[in-house]
């Protein structure tokens, strides 16, 4: 057997393990989300299946597995079947470029060739030099799963849900890309590993240099993953369940898995790009870089996702479009312009945040001064 074949087998194995762990996290996430939202509403949440409801997701999974899988007469069978698969595959694929850990600290089995072309890492499936582009490209494919699913259902409400989904995801992808561009300009690389290394070397998280980009990215990632308050495609009150009204059993749970895996992916991107990835500053070398840190940070981001879902009501459609096109996009462009100037003038890291915050305050004051005459 050739070396290449072994590498292929190894990569497939690592992908399988990552998928399995993501699915397990998805299961735990559903239970945790229900518990957390319940506690935020003075309730208890699922607590009957096992201690603190720990087996609830497995009970739910078994239930979904044995449920009848309906298909409407109007449905286009092939697209109807393939749509949830597209959603899930896309959201699982995009996790491949996330560097779960920079080094190989606890298990030093696969030392990367220094600066070599085929540098391989234990805790990352594929370290490609256009990782951010790959991720943006793959995540924008996820709209196909939703749109095809909604259209192939042969149901008006599903169709409305998927139309909303396509409009929303395309609108917010712009803000998402723009907000990622600013840190990329500072780092000068499209590889997630370079971005994380950049923060590890300076011991400064990029959120301190790019606060505005972080906020814009977070809001657009909520919209990209169809999370509340941007869950218009699956608005229960208006559309039944939106694009997955006609799905039942395991087909429905594939959509469900896809949504949560996408949440994990954008959360991991947020952590990697803005919060130092798997590294923490101020710790002695072997302990400052571990996948445990990334997972801890990821769950913190998930907590905020759930917290926001428990707090805010859903946006109206016009509000959604307003925020995307008239708030996030201009803010992202402004941020990008300032960052470009800063990179050209070789600002220190704090220069970027000072410039961005200063510009926003300046614009606010200017706006107030120019409107003074109108109101009085």
């Amino acid at each position, binding site marked *: 057997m050739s070396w290449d074949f072994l590498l292929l087998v190894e990569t497939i194995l690592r992908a399988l393990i990552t998928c399995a762990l993501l699915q397990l996290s998805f299961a735990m996430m559903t239970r945790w989300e229900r518990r957390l939202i319940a*506690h*935020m509403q003075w*309730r*208890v949440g699922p607590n009957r299946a096992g201690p603190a409801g720990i087996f609830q997701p497995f009970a739910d999974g078994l239930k979904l597995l044995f449920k009848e899988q309906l298909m409407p007469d109007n449905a286009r069978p092939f697209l109807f079947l393939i749509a949830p698969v597209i959603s899930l595959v896309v959201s699982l694929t995009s996790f491949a470029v996330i560097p779960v850990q920079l080094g190989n600290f606890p298990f030093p089995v696969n030392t990367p060739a220094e600066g070599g072309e085929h540098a391989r890492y234990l805790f990352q499936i594929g370290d490609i030099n256009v990782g951010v582009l790959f991720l943006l490209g793959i995540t924008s494919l996820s709209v196909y799963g939703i749109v095809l699913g909604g259209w192939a259902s042969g149901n008006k409400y599903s169709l409305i849900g998927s139309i909303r989904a396509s409009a929303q995801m395309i609108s917010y992808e712009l803000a998402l890309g723009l907000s990622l561009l600013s840190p990329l300009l500072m780092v000068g690389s499209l590889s997630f590993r370079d971005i994380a290394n950049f923060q590890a070397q300076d011991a400064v998280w990029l959120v301190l240099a790019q606060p505005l980009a972080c906020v814009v990215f977070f809001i657009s990632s909520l919209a990209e993953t169809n999370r509340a308050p941007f869950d218009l495609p699956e608005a229960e009150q208006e559309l039944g369940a939106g694009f997955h009204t006609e799905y039942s059993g395991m087909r429905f749970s594939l959509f469900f898995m896809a949504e949560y895996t996408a949440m994990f992916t954008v959360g991991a991107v947020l952590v990697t790009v803005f919060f130092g990835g798997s590294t923490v500053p101020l710790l002695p070398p072997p302990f400052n870089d571990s996948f445990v840190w990334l997972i801890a940070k990821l769950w913190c981001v998930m907590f905020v996702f759930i917290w926001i879902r428990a*707090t805010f009501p859903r946006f109206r459609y016009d509000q959604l479009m307003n925020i995307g096109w008239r708030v996030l996009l201009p803010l992202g462009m402004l941020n990008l312009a300032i960052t470009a100037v800063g990179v050209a003038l070789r600002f220190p890291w704090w220069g970027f945040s000072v410039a961005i915050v200063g510009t926003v305050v300046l614009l*606010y004051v200017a*706006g107030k001064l120019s409107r003074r005459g109108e109101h009085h």
Partner: protein
Amino acid sequence: MDKVIDDLISLGKGLSITFKNYLEKPVTKQYPEEKRPVPNRTRGRHVLHRYEDGLERCVGCLLCQGTCPAGAIYIEAEENEKDAPVSKGERHARIFDVDLLRCIYCGHCEMACPTNAITLENNTALAGFTRESLLLHKEDLLEPEGTATLGTTEYWDPKPPESVKHKVPSQTGRFDGSSTSAAAVGRGDLKLHSKPINPKVEEEGDDE
């Protein structure tokens, strides 16, 4: 712009409220293990009571059956044997059935009962898998032999304030029929000879 800042502040307020709630203790009661106390006068499942000597209080007068607005009670009365009486009166209930699916838990039967035999106790957890299981017979309703309780009757005494006088005969231990409907007593709207319990009722009667 000011509106934007106000909006952002209110978003933060919303987040802080949910986070505060998260830190507080849930209000949920884990029902089967942990029960909320009910008021003593809660009207739940029926119980038939006994005297101290083990005789049944029910004398088979059919007043409860007559007053029941839902027709939930079915009684067949029988004469007592002289040497082996079942109740203290002339008759006793041979059959005493309560259909919980018909009962509306209004409490008219316990009000009508001249001997405090039937009361609605605090057991409100009433459920069954069949209709038959919710049709209670006399042996289900009777309190076990050797016990002689008054049930919720005790909690109607101390009496409620004067302004909200309930016409509960068991408060006086004397039944004069004034608290039940004429149809229940079966004597039309015949004026009663005995003195009414409540003087105010008499005044109202005079006004008519």
